[in-house]
């Protein structure tokens, strides 16, 4: 029992070390961003196209639900004009980044793991090495940085959509005018909230893409292995997002 736990710990530690080493090599290879700009642009496109529809949907519903919830929880306690602010803050600092992060772990992280895993088991990654093309520079770095850049953009879009989703609910069901809903937002708006949103989404984006890339490039065991890799990429990323969200909450508030 203790031995199992011990060997599991050692195993996770080595995995962590190897993932960090990959991260280091990705960062070093980031210096080729200009030379390889086509690869980067392509990955950014892919991530955007893959996730935008889903993220817009999530945004709209998160906003709608937040407004509905705020009204239900303290609609009778505070003036209606604060419902918009409550939605705005909840969505921006917490729900937007975390929900988007989780969804992107499923959409982007898993598909990275599946793509790279398939390349790995069919020796396409080895073929790159043999042609003296570094897979970290050619495959991993563009995917990682694309996520790093695109996820904050996507989260920002999602948060904007969420505000309007919230307003839609307020306007249609709670009889809130645009003036009531949006009026207090500039008053309570803090740059720090935006910073928190960005820090979170950059962190989650980096996590999702690093894990997807790492798991993908370390796939073994045929088609079944690829299946497991996609699941692992999602599970690891989701768990780590929740943990880092907590840690960031401790650090940032």
């Amino acid at each position, binding site marked *: 029992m203790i031995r199992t736990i011990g060997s599991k710990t050692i195993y996770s530690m080595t995995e962590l070390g190897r993932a960090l080493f990959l991260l280091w090599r990705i960062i070093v290879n980031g210096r080729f961003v200009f030379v390889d700009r086509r690869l980067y642009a392509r990955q950014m496109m892919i991530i955007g196209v893959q996730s935008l529809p889903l993220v817009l949907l999530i945004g709209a519903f998160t906003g709608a639900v937040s407004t509905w919830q705020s009204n239900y929880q303290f609609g009778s306690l505070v003036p209606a004009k604060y419902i918009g602010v409550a939605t705005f803050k909840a969505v921006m600092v917490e729900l937007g980044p975390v929900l988007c992060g989780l969804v992107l772990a499923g959409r982007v992280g898993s598909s990275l793991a599946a793509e790279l895993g*398939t*390349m790995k088991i*069919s*020796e*396409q990654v*080895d*073929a*790159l*090495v*043999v*042609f*003296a*093309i*570094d897979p970290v520079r*050619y495959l991993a770095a563009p995917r990682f940085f694309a996520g790093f850049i695109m996820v904050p953009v996507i989260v920002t879009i999602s948060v904007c959509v969420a505000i309007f989703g919230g307003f839609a609910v307020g306007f249609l069901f709670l009889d809130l005018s645009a003036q009531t809903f949006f009026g207090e937002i500039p008053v309570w708006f803090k740059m720090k909230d935006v910073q928190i949103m960005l820090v979170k989404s950059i962190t989650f984006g980096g996590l999702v893409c690093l894990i997807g890339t790492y798991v993908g490039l370390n796939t073994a065991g045929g088609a079944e292995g690829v299946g497991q890799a996609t699941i692992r990429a999602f599970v690891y990323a989701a768990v780590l997002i929740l943990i880092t969200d907590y840690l960031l909450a401790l650090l940032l508030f």
Partner: protein
Amino acid sequence: MIELVNIKKSFGEKPVLRNVNLTVEEGESVVIIGRSGSGKSVAFRHILRLIKPDEGRVYVEGRDISTLSRKGLYKVLENIGVLFQNSALWDSMNVFENIALALRRHKMCGGENGIRKRVYDCLDMVGLGMTGISGTGGVEIIGTRMPSELSGGMRKRVGLARAIAPNPAYMLYDEPTTGLDPIMSGIINRLIKRLNKELNVTSLTITHDMHSASTIADRIVLLHKGEFKDLGTPDEANSNDDPIVRQFIHGEDGPIHPVLTDHFEKVHVHHS
């Protein structure tokens, strides 16, 4: 020169290479034969440092590749062309891009026009350029096909074109004619031979095709029970009277059990 010295490699409990020694001289063409699953491809992967040996050393041009930095390794690999057993074409790129990628990334052929010419020349060389024989309608059309649209034999030939495109000094061919019809096999065998004899490309070829082996080999080695056994020239190999060798080369009845793998391992039924 490529040298494998006392290579030992096991996967888990299963020994695959027990003590492998091989020297391929500059300009030489060596053919490796051996049963499926005997570890021929594993031996290839050692030369490319895709696998590290449990024991032993690999030298390419006199340098121990285990001591090279990543950059140093890539420098060595730029000189080695590899045809993978399963072709390992990049799925997300069409045939043209597959062949052009390494040329582009290493800035060869003096620009895009030179690269285009080189890609089409290579497709021609592997018999994918001739309308009629390949049924593809010429190099331009085959160039736009995706790997998933090709037959196994065509993929193999694209893999070969990709491998020879950067003009490597060494070529490793893993079963170059498997899955090809006899006409195509002939074309590929002659191509391998021509690269070796005219361009002095040092080659190491894995094959099950004894006809192919006798065409291209200066020397044949047999991988059996985790060790290489030098059989000499194709003629010498043919007249070898060791029953194990005869069973391989002539398919005669012999001491090697047909179902169980040849090896020192327990019971391991072979599927491939």
